[in-house]
């Protein structure tokens, strides 16, 4: 077995600490919790992966950090989000604006969420820079153009004058990546940053991100791509149906997963195969947040469920070395 050297000692300082975060949404069908009692942290210089089935609350967790939960439908009910000692949930709008795109920046899952269709790329890129860094338009323009080159966009000079629709999906995504990395923030929240990128371009982007880490930036990386998690992250958090199911360093999660959900997830990873054929998904679907089963939310898909799982909600148990799991089997 090849073990990865996972960087990061236990005594490193925590940059971000999320404590018992609970976020709810109100819809026509009623109120539900999209994020339920979630706690984790990101240390300085660390790349932490956040994975879990579609709809489990990854993006909502990420958006909470920047306080971008759409209101009034969504609401942070409970919890603290501490960044460098400050509780972000206590800041006023002006202070929060200072944090966004400066100390913390975000690469959104869908480019359309971040790029305005009405303005040219260049203008959108320099806006934030000029706002936070107090530099001239010309300097900002040069920095931005240079970043377009860094994310491998050909004809960067020309592209500064393009509208988003004139770029391919992957190019839009890279523009967003450039915008997020440009200010050299303390924390980058990357929500599926490379879903539209082929592996070779992806590799170039991840080289960039790794370089950035050298210069102190921490990254919270949300992705469903286990290959990327493996190559990039030291530590991984696994969510299932609004709660954390398992957390641990990369080797523990990949080689010694204890939560049945994590195990199933790892089994359904598509392999480079020479024969077309069916994949092995975890049977069943994520329950709707309105009909979570009693007890453990994974119960009706869990091959190992037993009596107790019906009655009680499993809490995260520390297995040592930062490895935690919420399952009665441990």
């Amino acid at each position, binding site marked *: 077995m090849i073990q990865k050297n996972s960087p990061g000692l236990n005594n490193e300082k925590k940059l971000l600490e999320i404590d018992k975060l609970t976020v709810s949404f109100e819809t026509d069908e009623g109120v539900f919790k999209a994020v339920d009692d979630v706690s984790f942290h990101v240390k300085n210089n660390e790349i932490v992966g956040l994975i879990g089935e579609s709809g489990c609350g990854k993006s909502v967790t990420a958006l909470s950090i920047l306080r971008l939960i759409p209101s009034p439908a969504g609401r942070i009910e409970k919890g603290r989000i501490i960044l460098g000692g400050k509780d972000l949930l206590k800041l006023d709008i002006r202070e929060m604006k200072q944090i966004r795109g400066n100390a913390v920046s975000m690469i959104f899952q869908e480019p359309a969420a971040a790029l305005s269709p009405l303005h040219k790329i260049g203008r959108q890129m320099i806006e934030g820079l000029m706002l936070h860094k107090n530099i001239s338009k010309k300097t900002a323009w040069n920095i931005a153009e240079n970043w377009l080159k860094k994310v491998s966009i050909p004809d960067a000079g020309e592209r500064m004058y393009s509208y988003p629709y004139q*770029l391919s999906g992957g190019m839009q995504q890279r523009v967003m990546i450039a915008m997020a990395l440009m200010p050299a923030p303390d924390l980058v929240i990357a929500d599926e940053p490379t879903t539209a990128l082929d592996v070779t371009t992806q590799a170039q982007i991840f080289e960039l991100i790794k370089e950035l880490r050298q210069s102190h930036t921490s990254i919270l990386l949300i992705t469903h791509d286990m290959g990327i998690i493996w190559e990039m992250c030291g530590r991984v958090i696994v969510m299932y149906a609004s709660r954390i199911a398992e957390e641990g360093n990369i080797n523990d999660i990949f080689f010694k997963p204890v939560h049945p959900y994590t195990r199933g997830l790892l089994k359904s990873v598509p392999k480079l195969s020479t024969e077309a054929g069916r994949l092995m998904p975890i049977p069943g679907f994520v329950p709707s947040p309105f009909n979570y089963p009693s007890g453990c939310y994974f119960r009706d898909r869990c091959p190992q469920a037993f009596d107790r799982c019906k009655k009680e909600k499993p809490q995260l148990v520390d297995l040592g070395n930062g490895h935690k799991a919420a399952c009665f089997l441990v």
Partner: protein
Amino acid sequence: MNKQLIKQPILEIRNLKTWFPIKRGIMARTAGYVKAVDGISMHLYKGETLGLVGESGCGKTTLGRTLLRLEKPQKGKILFLGKNLLDLKRKKLQEMRKRIQMIFQDPLTSLNPRMNVLDIVTEGLVEYKIIKKNKEDHAKRLMKEVGLDENSIYRYPHEFSGGQRQRISIARSISLKPDLLICDEPVSALDVSVQAQIINLLLDLRDSYNLSYIFISHDISIVSNIANRIAVMYLGKIVEQGPASDVINNPMHPYTKALINAVPTPGIYKKKKIVLKGETPSPSSPPPGCHFHTRCSEVMDICRKTAPQESKSGMRQVWCHLYKGIG
């Protein structure tokens, strides 16, 4: 049954070119073209899945959009069941549109934010008068097929997660049971487990309705699980094509080699990784000779001057000077 008939391609593309003009200055004169699709020929049989892979920006989406006639090609032919789509008048085209559907790459921009999911997924069914009543039932059935909560049909696109939105867009595009489904990164926003479910759903649909797919994905492992054939694109052109297993086991074009080598595999730590060096060349003024020569590890003198011609061997085709002999 007549074998000839079975083997008639459902789709045949001949020398297709879709170029976007680059406008400059106040007079907005055309200063050149982004040659997004630059002379592509290919075919697709009924029930077949063609995987289309290639670097970001190489023209995959543009090719798909051109097939739907959402972009106007400069040149070329698109024969769908023998008829050139580019010659069709509005009414006939409308007919054909029903039979070719696309799952768009960016669900957020392709779903109307003012329509609820019920109306979105049944829009085609209503428009083509396939259903008159029981819209709810049809919507619920479609939602179930893609693994979404059937009670959420009254919600709007922004009330879903990214992966859920992508599944709404999948539900909409399979609602009409088209003959040809162009899937543009259909599972890229989905976690592996849901991804596997969607791929299996697409395989089932293919088997029960004999659908044909063009499956665009940057993820060659996924493509390898669904495609019969793989075409690799680089800067507007196809550089290699062949049966999926052959291309993956024995990639010939240096770009394909890099693409396959770069796939990160969980649990395996690769020491030697080919990371493509050098800038992605400009699609408006691509390098002379072989478009890949600026980044190719096996570049030769001739590559800088002469564009490689097709070399063919059995079902394989490759455009690279290394393989001059095999044709």
